């Protein structure tokens, strides 16, 4: 009966277990990232100075930078940098990866949020319609649309979007804001805090195309997941029970079907984060959006593997943490999750 205390106890235990299980996963991830970076060819010194210095000078500099230090030493440094949440200092321009995350994370966050909003605004109604009218034309059309949407990579949709709108309306032009004081490192928020609504509008306009390009990547998944969820929840026992109480069909579909179908969307959202991060790299590159992904590409081009290692580590950790959070949220809101 009144087992709430017992329940919260087991929830706590569940969360702790889940975290404990994530630890070896994270360790393996770290090793993986580290190993990949050591196998990767190139180093920032050869990359930036390779055309200018002779072989001996290059070797001396590599040594001075510690790129020939023993692997265990390098791994230890790497681990330390992760534990201190510093994630290393880039070689090519001596920024701490943490600073990169703080300075550029805002832009990635804004872009990802924009993409999610777009995907939700389009995906949720379409998915609900498709699920409600299963196998009718609207369903078939939406399935086709969603399949096309995820058959279209960002680097196809983005140029096409630019072709269609960018050059005429200027939305594809890069965002430049000079007079927004930095407070949160999220430009749009800073602009809002500053009361500079012209800047906010400008930022939002520039956000539009990248958000659509990135959002299109996941909107198909949204539509499908919502559709399937709705179909399943419409077959739910409580739906029949509600009908048996004479609740109007419209209400049954809206209150029991839609609402219950949308809860798993949280999970979908979470699972899409990995995909969004990958897509953000390309989107940021194409639209010159000052996010972490663009930094990553720059550092890859400079063969700055300390930076790449740090950023990739952060990306991987974000994915792990988000999947953890989703599990927790699910455990909290959905009593059917066993723990």
């Amino acid at each position, binding site marked *: 009966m009144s087992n709430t205390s017992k329940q919260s106890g087991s929830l706590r235990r569940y969360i702790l277990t889940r975290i404990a299980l994530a630890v070896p996963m994270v360790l393996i991830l770290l090793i993986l990232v580290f190993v990949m970076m050591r196998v*990767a060819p190139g180093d920032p010194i050869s990359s930036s100075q390779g055309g200018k210095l002779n072989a001996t000078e290059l070797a001396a500099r590599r040594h001075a930078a510690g790129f020939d230090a023993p692997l265990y030493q390098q791994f230890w440094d790497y681990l330390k940098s992760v534990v201190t949440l510093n994630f290393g200092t880039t070689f090519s321009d001596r920024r701490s990866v943490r600073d990169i995350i703080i300075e550029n994370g805002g832009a990635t966050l804004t872009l990802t949020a924009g993409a999610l909003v777009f995907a939700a605004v389009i995906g949720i109604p379409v998915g609900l319609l498709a699920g409600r009218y299963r*196998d009718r034309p609207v369903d078939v059309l939406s399935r086709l649309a969603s399949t096309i949407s995820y058959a279209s*990579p960002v*680097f196809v949709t983005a*140029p096409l979007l630019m072709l269609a709108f960018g050059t005429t309306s200027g939305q594809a032009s890069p965002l430049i804001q000079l007079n927004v004081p930095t407070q949160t490192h999220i430009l749009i928020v800073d602009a809002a805090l500053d009361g500079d609504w012209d800047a906010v509008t400008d930022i939002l306009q520039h956000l539009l195309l990248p958000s659509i390009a990135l959002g299109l990547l996941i909107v*198909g998944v949204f539509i499908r997941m919502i559709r399937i969820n709705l179909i399943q929840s419409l077959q739910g026992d409580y739906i029949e029970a509600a009908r048996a109480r004479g609740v109007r069909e419209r209400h049954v579909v809206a209150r029991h079907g839609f609402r219950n179908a949308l809860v798993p969307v949280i999970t979908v959202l979470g699972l899409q984060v990995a995909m969004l991060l*990958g897509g953000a790299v390309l989107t940021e590159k*194409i639209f010159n959006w000052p996010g972490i992904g663009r930094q990553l590409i720059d550092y890859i081009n400079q063969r700055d593997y300390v930076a790449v290692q740090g950023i*990739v580590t952060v990306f991987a950790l974000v994915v792990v943490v988000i999947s953890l959070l989703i599990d927790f949220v699910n455990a909290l809101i959905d009593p059917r999750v066993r723990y």
Partner: protein
Amino acid sequence: MATTTLPTGPIEPDATPAAGTAASSRFGGLRRITTAVREAHGVPKFMLWTGAVITALFVITAVFAPLIAPYSFDTYRAGGTNFPKQGSPDGDHWFGTTVQSLDVLSRTIYGARTALEVMVLAVIFSLILGVLLGLVSGYFGGWLDRILVLVMDALFAFPYLLLAIVAGFVFSGVSGGGVVTAALSITVVYIPQYYRVVRASALSAREATFVEAARAMGAKPSVVIRKYLFGNVIQSVPVITTMNAADAIGTLAGLGFLGLGIQPTEAAEWGYDLERAIDDVNAGMWWTTLYPGLAMVIAILGFTLLGEGLNDVLNPTMRRRRLGKVLLPDHTRRRTVTASALPEAPGATEGEAVK
């Protein structure tokens, strides 16, 4: 970039077949697939066949590229004159020419060839590695299994484009910017998917009675794996393979777009062409973007539709019963007889006994 994580999700329960079914023959799984495909109907059938047609067109284009394309992917002159640079589409060059004075139509067609090569290699590599690792891991279990699971989960948790980028970055130093490098980079991304599905099947099959019986009769592990597990595993593989093929096209192009894929002097590659075309887009030259982009979307779409169709057809949880409207025949009312007295039925006494 299509998602492949999605379709594998709902498939997994299906991938652990009920112990003892369809495993008696090595080809039981295959037969099940063909039967299911033949019985497909409605939307899945439409998707399946549209996908199959597009895929077939794609493969034909790729295989016969030299016959179909007006020029080779690196032809820049014909009849003694160079092609125009960034020429707009006209009678000589239906799809225009690129910044390198190459024929966009030919490059688009040859791009299919490159995509197919990389895709086939990547799928074969990851199939072999993933299935092998999955079987070994699931069948033998133990510490090997535990470590492999962790590694694969970690790989799986990785944003997959990032993984491909890093892998492309790693392999490009080892084997240059060719087809094999690109295939290897993509392989890394897909191994975990095959591994997961196959391991799950192997785990459940390991406990199945028929496998235990085989082992009891002294069958060697290799025989058990080959004869009994393959039969079960093989039915979940087509869907993943098709979806991965779709994905591989996107990932290859992603790598090419970032300059980590196949170099233009080696072969025609859509992603590279698109990257070069970004400059053109801003200059209002649409043809260098549109055609390779469209070709890629269509190719991915073909494989995705095929994969989704297969998924719908093969996956019983997705399958919907065809519910034809029932027409009730005329009702024949049951005759009624009124009895005047209780009959002495033979069972009556027994009924008494129960009471």
